[in-house]
């Protein structure tokens, strides 16, 4: 603080001698003077700028020890890189790992509540594009809270999210180790299924109404890596509402039901239109934990392994 007071005195002295016209220049000088001060702080620069998945340049403190996550996958990432102690807020959907439940909830992903968020004094709020919160992001920025948006469309994007969160929380090394482990597991799966004929799969995200994974979903990439060919891989959007007659006409050889996680027992049966599909007739309907397939976080690789083992059991003997 000492140097700051010195320079301020100097500026005040300067101000008293100059006319009002020079005020803008002086303000600039003052800003420059202040900006140069942090050099003396041992931790290095006080702020840093990171580019998020929305292409925004997000300015945040160099050391972040209070962060809020507004999506279940981001909460999982925060804990996985060892930043659980820095998490001061989460959504009511964030139920994993179990420790997350002891963190204060600030609404759900679609409707986060601004007041408790501000009261928790976070330095950074982690947002997933799934929450579609342009206005909300702006409100946070007006409160001088950095809003960092993640938007992974494939497994590489998920790894990038992990590295980004690691960097934000000062857990770069842990994040790098985690990503390396996940990459190795991914590589092992890819090697195992490499010689296998890809299975034509229909992914049933929900049955009534029928939703699936489209072109922009990381789940489509997971299926490809698991030795599957999603019949909806080219449908625009991430989670399109899909025509049941197109699902029938695609004649999938296997069906993946996202169920058993947050979904509970919902979506555990194949839609009526697909009851006579090759997949059902051959008994190739697989229930995979929906949290592993819909949350672009560390457990996506669990989902990848589960799908690959279900689709190509003989590749993992």
């Amino acid at each position, binding site marked *: 603080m000492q140097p700051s007071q010195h320079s301020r005195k100097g500026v005040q002295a300067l101000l008293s001698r100059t006319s009002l016209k020079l005020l803008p220049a002086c303000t600039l000088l003052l800003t420059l003077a202040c900006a140069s001060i942090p050099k003396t702080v041992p931790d290095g620069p006080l702020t840093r700028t990171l580019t998020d998945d929305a292409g925004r340049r997000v300015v945040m403190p160099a050391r972040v020890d209070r962060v809020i996550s507004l999506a279940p996958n981001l909460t999982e990432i925060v804990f996985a890189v060892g930043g659980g102690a820095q998490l001061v807020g989460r959504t009511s959907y964030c139920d994993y790992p179990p420790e997350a439940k002891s963190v204060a909830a600030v609404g*759900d*992903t679609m409707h986060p509540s601004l007041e408790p968020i501000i009261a928790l004094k976070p330095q950074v709020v982690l947002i997933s594009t799934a929450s579609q919160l342009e206005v909300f992001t702006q409100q946070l920025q007006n409160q001088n809270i950095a809003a960092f948006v993640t938007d992974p469309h494939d497994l590489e994007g998920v790894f990038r999210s992990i590295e980004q969160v690691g960097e934000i929380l000062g857990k770069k090394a842990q994040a790098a180790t985690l990503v390396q482990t996940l990459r190795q597991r991914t590589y092992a799966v890819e090697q195992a299924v490499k010689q296998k004929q890809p299975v034509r799969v229909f992914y049933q995200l*929900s049955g009534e109404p029928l*939703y699936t994974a489209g072109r922009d979903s990381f789940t489509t990439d997971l299926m490809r890596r698991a030795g599957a060919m999603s019949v909806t891989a080219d449908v625009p959007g991430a*989670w399109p*509402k*899909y*025509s049941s*007659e197109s699902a029938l006409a695609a004649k999938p050889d296997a069906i993946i039901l996202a169920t058993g996680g947050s979904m509970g027992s*919902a979506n555990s049966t194949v839609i009526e239109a697909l009851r006579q599909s090759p997949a059902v007739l051959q008994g190739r309907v697989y229930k995979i934990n929906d949290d592993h397939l819909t949350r672009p976080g560390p457990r996506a690789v669990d989902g990848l392994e589960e799908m690959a083992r279900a689709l190509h059991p003989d590749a993992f003997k």
Partner: protein
Amino acid sequence: MMNRVTLRKTVISCALLAAALLFAVVFMSLLGSEPLPVRSSLCALASFGSTSCGLTSDQFDILFQIRLPRIVLAAAVGGSLATAGAGYQALLRNPLAEPYLLGISNGAAVGTMIALVFFGANEWTRPLLAFTGALLATLAVYRLARGRAGATPERLILAGVIVTTFLSSVIVFVTTLMDATRIRSFTFWLLGDLSGTSKAMLPVTIIIAIAGALTLTLNARSLNLLMLGERDAFDLGVEVGRVRVVVFLVASLLVGSSVAASGSVGYVGLVVPHLARLSLGSDNRISIPAAALGGAVFVIVADTIARTVIAPRELPVGAITALIGAPLFIYLLKRA
């Protein structure tokens, strides 16, 4: 009690509309996200599915297991909503009375959602609670609208707005009781969606639609007299109380069954009866059956657009009925 001219007009217009309905059912079933061979499909349809006429088994299933049930549901929902709209308009003597605008659809939606949240597994509770919700909403609107000076058009619409917004908040509240993964499906369903055709409930929806339209048509003469005013109708021998109860029950049942099957499809009950009255006159003996048939055609066409325009993805049919309905209604208002 119909005179010969009215009878002939009713028969001719209903026959024409029934032909249009048949045409819509057949030709809209040729359209969809998956192309089907036209000639074979027509041949299979003409044989009522007894021969495949060279369709592959998948094509046959698409036509008879997916498209046709959905089109029939669209017809039942459209017929129900248009009939209910015509009934409310006659009873309340207000051309703007419509299940969606009066909040009655919302009442049925709340009922359905409660059934889904608390009795998820039991499909039969949905139309039952939807009917209850529609009936309660109808009573609420009616009681709110009746001041000392009777139910003025302004009061009725105001009552509708209040009931609609109140029930919208209830819907938002009920969605917070649901888990995250189901909310997406519900927002879609709330906008009106016919893709979740349940084979078990389809016959119920159809029977209610037909029975409802017939009941209201049989009460059409009383409704005509009621449109002169309740006191005059009473003097002319109409059992006002009985007719009112019948229309309320039947219209609520129609709205309840269609909302339980497909969510809130808006504007059908407004646009279709208007169109029927403008082209055929305001005699309910003609306009009610005409609205029933016309509503069926309208929703079939709207749903065909919903399932083909961004195929293989789908839009909620309610978005299409509103997109067609709102401008059409403004046009009708300007012309009238």
